């Protein structure tokens, strides 16, 4: 029995340990939450942007809306700071996608103005909109939520999801007060994998 148990543990160590998300503690890798929910939405330039098209890059997906006056600008400014710190990796290797939770107001043109106001490098950062039902579906599948109070005012959960190059959701940051250096470290760790 002891031999059997030892064999199973060895088998796990050989094949399985890296296969389980909770091996993260031992290896220092970020956990593996699951396949990142797919989406295909319209960018600030009017182009169709699908998550599948970004495969091979590390991606940060977040939810904002352009008329949000207090907290979304804090989050977007933080992401812009991370964008700058990523240097040459931003764009070719790391992409950001900010999805609006107020699609009826946030047209591509509105999102373009919002992006410009936050010095977003649009070579690596897409601001996405789409039909309300599609947006709600994406919000829900990422485990966030958004509820429109009135036009231009949306209650929503701030949730930034990091996705690895294979399209796996690896970690989510709650709120907008997170440490940007920690997110930067996580993005770079995903680049190294």
């Amino acid at each position, binding site marked *: 029995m002891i031999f059997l148990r030892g064999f199973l543990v060895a088998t796990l160590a050989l094949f399985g340990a890296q296969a389980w998300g909770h091996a993260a503690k031992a290896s220092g890798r970020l956990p593996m939450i699951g396949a990142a929910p797919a989406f295909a939405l319209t960018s600030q330039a009017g182009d169709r942007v699908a998550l599948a098209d970004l495969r091979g890059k590390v991606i940060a997906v977040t939810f904002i809306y352009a008329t949000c006056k207090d907290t979304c600008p804090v989050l977007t400014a933080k992401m812009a700071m991370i964008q700058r710190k990523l240097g040459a990796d931003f764009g070719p290797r790391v992409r950001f996608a900010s999805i609006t939770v107020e699609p009826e107001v946030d047209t591509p043109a509105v999102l373009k103005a919002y992006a410009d106001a936050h010095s977003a490098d649009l070579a690596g950062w897409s601001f996405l909109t789409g039909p309300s039902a599609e947006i709600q579906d994406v919000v*829900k599948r990422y485990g966030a939520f958004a509820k429109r109070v009135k036009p231009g005012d949306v209650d929503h959960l701030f949730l930034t999801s990091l996705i690895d190059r294979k399209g796996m959701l690896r970690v*989510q940051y*709650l709120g907008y007060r997170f440490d940007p250096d920690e997110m930067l470290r996580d993005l770079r760790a995903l680049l190294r994998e």
Partner: protein
Amino acid sequence: MISRRQFVKDAALAGAAGALGYGRELLAAEPPPETTRIRLIEITGICIAPQYVARDLLHGEGFTDVQYFKAVAGIATAKAVAAGNADISINFVAPFLIQLDAGDPIILLGGIHAGCFVLFGTERVRAVRDLKGKTVGVQALGSSQHVFLASMMAHVGLDAKKDVNWATHPSSESMRLLAEGKIDAFLGFPPDPQELRAKKIGRVIVDSGKDRPWSQYFCCMVGGNRDFVRKHPVATKRALRAILKASNLCALEPQRAARLIADRGYDYDYSLETLKDIPYDKWRDYDAEDSVRFYALRLQEAGMIKSSPQKIIAKGTDFRFLNELRKELKA
């Protein structure tokens, strides 16, 4: 505790997948919940706000049927979870421990926050010790207030069974009696403290959100029905994740969270005050096991449980989901 059969099954699966060359992705992807129905508790208080705010997030986790079962906070809530009337709920940890000690099938899954309870007194009460011989208002014997105050009294050497006169009334009645000086003290939890402060009734004797040792431990924790947790581990983790996310929302966006709570019929202003008063963002920081140990010791002192803290922890806690979520959700 994972069974030997399950261990062998998991090990074989992991080994086979590795041998066949499947990557981490296949095995690690979180499946949908084993059940699409989740039942939680609804109480008259607001301190379990994340449970109310979590409704939409629970839908996002795959629960198409989210139900709330009305119960009184405290022992009644713990019993409702144990009886399977609710699958999972936030509740004051002490009543959970009392029912665990009684053999009820409950599993504690993680902590949410400290700082619910505030003890108000008249000018005749300056400290907890002054409660000896006094009349104290609580919702009911076995309510969260009663159990918390019994723990506090035991901590300073008073016997809750004989040193005070318990006056059981609905909170609104107790607050009126306190204002009229007809009871000496009242232990409130949200929205009662917010209302008493707004109306300048009584004086604060102990604020569990600020005063040690109470402020250092979770008062409210998430507990699940043991059978539900065992049969539905994915659903349990998903439900806990929704509640923890909602807890962060309460901390970061109190106005928005208060609106969601007000939609359920609670007073917006008191909800907002509650969300600002209670540290809802501590679920990552405080130690859930320490909180169980702390309250188990207090309840032992008060003669309300016989089991040792270690026995309670061994048979009534499972923090694996919380530990996983700590890694998956950063803040």
